[in-house]
């Protein structure tokens, strides 16, 4: 693990009277995967969008200390959607051209090299997500922010997505990912940040979090957040 590429310091965000985040501080080091977990509405996506620079915090600040790059940060939205009528290769070409990258190589990195001529509307949910990750990788950004990259995917595809996430961290990228899939988070993440009602209630390695209850991550998670909030999280017991 290397120095932090991204620092969020005492970040807060309100939407009118609603406080989505309050006093959140996290670091995203290079060569590691940081997972943001928490119930629906806990502020994961808000924090990810603030870390990505897509949303301004109302309090605190986010700073980038990673290497100089044409595109410092790649972003995968929760439900990536692409302009219909275009093939995967044409879609990748558009994004690659913005940062002078190789679209074919991008597709091959995520395992879509065999379907360059397939229309994006004919892709499965998993393949669309992979195309979204290919887009996020364009320009080889040091930081990758992935919003629920495995949401709604079957177990095989979810594992494939998280394998890519792990590979990216092994290659030196700083990866921050939100997810409800705790078993995969436990396997892939170097650090887990647990959010509840807009605040960080725990931040540690998966192993350290496990030690709190002696069981798997979902037991720790259930102990950390309000029981009513926790039902939305996919755990090993419900799979």
């Amino acid at each position, binding site marked *: 693990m290397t120095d932090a590429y991204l620092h969020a310091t005492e970040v807060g965000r309100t939407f009118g009277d609603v406080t989505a985040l309050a006093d959140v501080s996290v670091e995203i080091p290079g060569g590691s995967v940081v997972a943001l977990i928490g119930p629906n509405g806990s502020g994961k996506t808000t924090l990810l969008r603030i870390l990505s620079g897509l949303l301004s915090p109302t309090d605190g600040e986010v700073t980038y200390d990673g290497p100089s790059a044409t595109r410092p940060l790649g972003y995968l939205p929760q439900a990536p959607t692409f302009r219909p009528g275009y093939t995967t290769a044409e879609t990748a070409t558009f994004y690659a051209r913005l*940062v002078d990258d190789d679209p074919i190589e991008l597709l091959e990195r995520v395992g879509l090299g065999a379907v360059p001529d397939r229309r994006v509307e004919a892709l499965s949910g998993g393949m669309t997500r992979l195309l979204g990750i290919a887009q996020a990788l*364009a320009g080889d950004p040091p930081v990758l922010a992935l919003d629920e990259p495995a949401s709604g995917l079957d177990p095989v595809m979810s594992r494939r997505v998280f394998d890519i996430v792990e590979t990216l961290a092994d290659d030196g990228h700083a990866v921050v990912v939100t997810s409800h899939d705790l078993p995969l988070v436990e396997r892939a993440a170097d650090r887990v940040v647990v959010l509840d009602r807009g605040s960080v209630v725990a931040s540690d390695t998966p192993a350290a979090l496990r030690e709190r209850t002696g069981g798997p991550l979902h037991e720790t998670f259930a102990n950390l957040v309000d029981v009513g909030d926790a039902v939305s999280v996919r755990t090993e017991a419900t799979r």
Partner: protein
Amino acid sequence: MTGRLDAFWAVFAREIRGATRNRTYLLLTAALTLVVFGLARAGNGPSAGYIPTVVDVLLVVEVLVPAVAFAVGYRSITDDAIRGTLDVLATYPLPPWAYVVGVYAGRAVALLSVVLVPLLILGAVVAASAAPATTVFASHRGVDSPLLFVRFLVLTATFALTTLAIAVAVSALADSRRRAILLALVGLLVVVVGADVTVLRALSGGLVDADLGTLLGVSPASAYRGLVFETVLYVAFSERAGFVSVPAAVTGLLGWSVGSLLVATLAVRGRQATVGLLEWLRA
């Protein structure tokens, strides 16, 4: 490292590729061809010459060109916003102005194809069917000429580009497809009649102290109509038509175009909310 111009070309190429696959544009071209030929034939303009043909189609072109421009542009940015593409693009070295101008330029090529192809065919029909006198280039009043029809085409293209810029601005302001349709209808009404009515009411109510010719330049439709009268149909008048001030009309069309693209750029910048980190990163 890619430049901002390269980023513009990437967006432009994407729009062109999309336009070449959009059969709706072919349908629009066919519909516009039918309408202008129907009108010209009814008025018997093509056999009489270029000027009578322009007179036959001017009123309908003045309404249909903005309608086609809004059809081409009203979802140009809204769709990218709905799909989350604008968020994704905010993480690329693509400034909002390069994105907006790329989208505009790409759609402009599609729009000009839809609008100019029927009129070029009409001009060819006039050349083939009108009296021999129309083939000379006019040097004085009272002489019909292909040059006048070319002027009409240039003015129509300019009017189309202006209304497309307004449509793109409307698209950047809409946050859903439904709102995009509503705003496009409002925008179309403003362009076709709203601006004219506002100018006339302002004059009749004594709200402004300026001559009508200058004020009409503020309205895109009046500016276009006035320029057609002043630079194309003038040959049919013994005196200057004086319908509109030419500098005011040109400035008006240019102002609407640049102003609309500026509004679209600001709206995209606002949507992307790239305040903070990304601005710092790009500084």
